[in-house]
Structures are given as structure tokens and as C-alpha cells.
């Protein structure tokens, strides 16, 4: 197990290096002079020079890169000139909200998706199955910003059942405030989850041990919960793991719709206000987060796999 973890970590290292190179070069994609973009057209040469010094762009490129990555192990991600805060402080304060939102969304997707997939797989090619499939085609094409906005308009503003924005405080407040955003996120992911889960459930139901269980005469409910669903769990975990990167991306839009103070909404605002260093720092955080998630899913999968350590 330890060897597996070490090997996977070693494979992830070049990718990590690549992530730092990409995010580092982001600031150099800015057309024109970043210092002038920050300071405005009427800035004096002295001010421009001092901003360049603060941004560190008055040094040679390699020195800049070294400065950038040497700060990372100590958690130095840069400074937001507009929010007057370090990026690391912002991330520490706002990342938990985003992670909470994504986990909440995954949970809702599972609660909605598992029964749908089960019904659809058990009654394969029935009217219900076709109904579910048709709904999924529509679900796949739902823009999350639109469905989120409709939920706000109808459930929050018209009926007043839910708050229209913000993240609330405390666990109950979080669950309450983030229900609509999490539901929106879940809906954008539901189609993919149900499609894959249905396929793997059907696969499990065609196996010999399920036929044996049927022959032994166990009850329907026991068959589905103990034998079928349990074996479809590993593919379900894989589907969710593979899509966490997508969900993090989707959370950016959802946070923006519901004005939730997570890292996604911060990224959008940073982009809109041209806070380049903040954009750079947040992109790096997202990249590292996905890398860690992929690594964890890989290791969990290997641990769950009955064949043991397959590379």
C-alpha cells in the first residue's frame, strides 16, 4: 500500500510542476503592462516602478519563477491588490465553503440519483426507464446558471421557502442557505451519475452471483440492497471521483449565481476586476485540489480493488 501511494505521488510530481508553470505564465499572458493595468493610465513612472517591484516583474523571468514556487511550500500564493489581503488568507477563509457546497451537491445527487438509476435498471426498457432516460437528456442540457436562477426566482423570491443568497453560519445555517446552490450543482451532475450508475447496475445484475442469489430465493429488497447496489458502489465512487473536477468548475458558476462567498465566486470577481495575482493564486489552488483528489481516488480505487495493488 505504501509503495503504491509513493509511486502515485511520484507520478503526480511532474504534473504539479506543470501546474505551477501554467499558473506562473498566466500573468505573462496579460496584454500590455500589468503594472499599468493596475495603476491606470495616469500613474507616474515612480508608481509604476514600485508596483512592478511589488509584483516582482522587474526581475528576470527565471528569478520570478523561482520566487513564485519557493513561496508555495510556505503557503505564499500572492497578494490581492483589490481586496488588500493575501491570497492564502482568502483561500483559507473561503475554500471550506466551496468544499462544503461540492460535498453537499454530491450528497444530493446520490440521494436523487441512486433510486432513479435503480428503478431504471430494474425495469430495463420499460416506460419508466424510457422516462428516466428522456429526463436525463434534458438534464444534460440544463445550464446551471439558468436552473439556479429559476430556483431562486420561484422557491426563494416567490414562495420564500429558502434564502436567495449567502452561505449562512453554523452547520444548520450552511445546510439551509446552501440547499438551493447544492441542488443546482446536483442537477448539473445528476444526468452523468444516473447514466453511468444505471449501466453498472445492469452489468452487476447480469452476473452469476446475482442469478445464484435469485435461485436461492432471497427477497427482492435484499437482493437489490445487499447484492446489486453494493457491487455497483465501486463504479459509483469512481464516477464521482472522475467528475469532482467538473463539479469544482461548475461550483464557480453556481457560487456566482447565488453569491456564495467561496473560492469560485472569488475567482469570478477577481477576473472581472482584473486582480491578476489573485486569479493566478486561485487557479493554482484549483489545480492542486484536483490533483490531490485524483490521487486520492486512484489510491482508494486500488485499495477497494479485490485484486489488490494493480499499478
Amino acid at each position, binding site marked *: 500500500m505504501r509503495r503504491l501511494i509513493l509511486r502515485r505521488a511520484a507520478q503526480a510530481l*511532474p*504534473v504539479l510542476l*506543470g*501546474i505551477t*508553470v*501554467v499558473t506562473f505564465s*498566466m*500573468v505573462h*499572458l*496579460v*496584454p500590455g503592462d500589468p503594472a499599468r493595468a493596475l495603476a491606470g493610465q495616469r500613474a507616474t513612472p515612480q508608481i509604476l516602478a514600485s508596483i512592478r517591484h511589488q509584483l516582482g516583474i522587474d526581475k528576470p523571468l527565471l528569478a520570478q519563477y523561482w520566487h513564485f514556487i519557493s513561496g508555495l511550500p510556505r503557503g505564499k500564493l500572492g497578494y490581492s491588490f483589490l481586496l488588500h489581503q493575501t491570497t492564502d488568507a482568502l483561500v483559507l477563509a473561503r475554500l471550506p465553503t466551496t468544499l462544503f457546497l461540492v460535498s453537499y451537491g454530491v450528497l444530493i445527487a446520490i440521494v436523487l440519483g441512486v433510486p432513479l438509476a435503480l428503478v431504471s435498471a430494474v425495469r430495463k426498457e420499460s416506460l419508466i426507464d*424510457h422516462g428516466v432516460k428522456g429526463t436525463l*437528456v*434534458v438534464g*444534460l*442540457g*440544463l*445550464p*446551471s*446558471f*439558468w*436552473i439556479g*436562477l*429559476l430556483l*431562486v*426566482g*420561484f422557491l426563494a*423570491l*416567490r414562495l420564500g421557502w429558502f434564502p436567495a443568497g449567502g452561505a449562512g453560519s453554523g452547520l444548520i445555517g450552511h445546510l439551509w442557505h446552501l440547499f438551493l446552490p447544492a441542488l443546482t450543482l446536483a442537477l448539473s451532475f445528476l444526468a452523468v451519475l444516473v447514466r453511468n450508475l444505471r449501466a453498472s447496475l445492469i452489468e452487476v445484475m447480469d452476473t452469476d452471483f446475482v442469478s445464484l442469489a435469485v435461485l436461492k430465493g432471497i427477497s427482492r429488497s435484499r437482493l437489490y440492497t445487499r447484492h446489486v447496489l453494493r457491487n455497483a458502489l465501486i463504479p459509483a465512487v469512481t464516477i464521482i471521483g472522475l467528475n469532482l*473536477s*467538473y463539479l*469544482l*468548475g*461548475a461550483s*464557480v*458558476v453556481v457560487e*456566482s*449565481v447565488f453569491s456564495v462567498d467561496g473560492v469560485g465566486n472569488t*475567482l*469570478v470577481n*477577481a*477576473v*472581472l476586476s*482584473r486582480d*491578476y495575482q489573485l*486569479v*493566478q493564486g*486561485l*487557479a493554482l489552488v*484549483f*489545480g492542486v485540489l*484536483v*490533483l490531490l483528489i*485524483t490521487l486520492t481516488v486512484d489510491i482508494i480505487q486500488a485499495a477497494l480493488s479485490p485484486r489488490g495493488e494493480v499499478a
Partner: protein
Amino acid sequence: MTAAHRGLPAQPRPPQGPRILRRPVLRASAVVPFLRGRERTSMMIGLALFGIVLLSAVFAPLISTYSPTALNPVAALQAPGAAHFFGTDQFGRDIFARTVYAARIDLIIAFSLVSTAFVIGTALGVVAGWAGGVLDSILMRIVDVALAFPFLVLVISIVGLRGPGLFSLYVAVSVVSWVFYARLVRSEVRQLRHAEYMLAAKASDYSTLRVLGRHLLPNVIIQPLVYASSDLVYALLLGASVSYLGLGVQPPTPEWGQMVQDGSTFIGAQWWLSFFPGAAIVVTAVAFSLIGDGLAALAREGSAR
């Protein structure tokens, strides 16, 4: 059972070219057997929906008598009715006209994003898979790094750094989205490299360009094509999302995502501002999905025979 086994005189075998020179797939006969039953129905629905969207985009001026950008403060925020099918926005602009005209820009965005990624990704995938070695390793490491970011995060960041606008959107998506095609095509190429007909083509001393273009490409192109047809859904949603965030198409050009954003402040009472452009996205996305599923089924059928 051949004829000889049943005690009958063996029939002369029909004349057949050397087996190694036959190239499978992408022949009309492999694609012609049309879909049947439910798959056929959903493909038809998809094509019909897409036809409606495409025709309204092309004939927008004929379908709507109103201008999509003309201001008319007297008729601001009118509910959907006989005069304005989809109602009007806060400036009195006709939502129906704007939704119909927006189909133009949204379709162009979706198709150009997908075709750019398709062309670049397929070309690089063929090169990587064919050349192997260092070139392959470098390209695949780039793919790994690009996939390490949430797609939307990378696109938004690049758009933001270049400054909002349609061109930035094209640049940002082109920089990233080719990797999906490259990875797909590369693995196909690596499987086909040592196929008999490829060896035959190489042995015939054809130029590399001819081997790749005439013999390899027709056989690896099906997978990325099928992928591209479902990718249209994502490209459509991506373009609309980025514009919704205010980073893509800029006003006053009507675009669905941006129209949803425009109406968001009125969502409590004047729901129609955001509802109809969003519904147009869903209809178009469903059309793309159904067509994509149909093409995937066709490809499966084609490769099965």
C-alpha cells in the same frame, strides 16, 4: 460450417483482394444501415429540433418583426402576450426577437469551439500517436497538466487575463479543449499503428503524408467525430456560461447566457426575461444530445459489422 463439411463440392471462393489491403470503417456501406426503432425516433426528434433552431437563426429577420436591439421605453417589462410572444425587457426590447437572433451567435460559438478543438486535437493526436517517443511524452504531459485544472476554471482565468470578449473566449477554449481530442485520437492511433493494412501502406513506400492522411486518418476519425457531436452540448453550455458571467459576448449583441444574466435582477417578478433565452439553450442542447447519441449508435453499428 463450410460447404465441404456438409459433403458438397467446395464452391470456388469469390475473388477477393489480399486481406491485408482491406481498410475497414468509413465506407458508405458501414454507415448506411439507418437506425431503427427508438434510436431512430430520438435521432429524428434531435434533427427536427436542431432544424428549428438553425432555421430561426438563418431567417431571424423574417421570423421576428421586431429589432433585437431597438429600445422602446414605453413598452418596458411587458409580460408575454400577443404583441410580444416572450415579453419585453427593461429597455422595451422584444425578448422573442432577441432570443431568435441570439441563436446565430450561440450556434456559431458552439460549432467554432468544437471544430477548432477537433482539428487541432486530432492533428496533434495523430502526430503523438504516430511519432511516439519524446514528442509523444511531451504532448501527453501537456495533456495531463491541462486536465489537472477544472476546465471552466482554466477557461475563465485565461479569458479574464486577456480581457473579456468573444475573441478571448475562442483563444481560451482553443488553448485547452484540444487535449480531449488529442488523447482520444492518440490512443486510437497507437492501437492501429501495427494493423496489417497500415504495414501494407508503409511497405508500399507511400509518403508519410499519404499513409497518415489516406490510410490512418479515415480509420481513427470516427471516435473524435462522435465525441465532437456530444461535445457540442458542452461547448454550447460553456459559451453561454462564460457570457453569463460577463466574460464572453458583450452587449448589445444578444446572446442567450448574457440575456439570462440581464434578466437575473428581475427574476422574482418578471421571470420571462431570463426564462426564454435559457429555455432556448435547453432546446438546442437537447437537439445536440439526441443527434450525438444517434451518431454514437450509428458508429457502434458501423464498427459491429
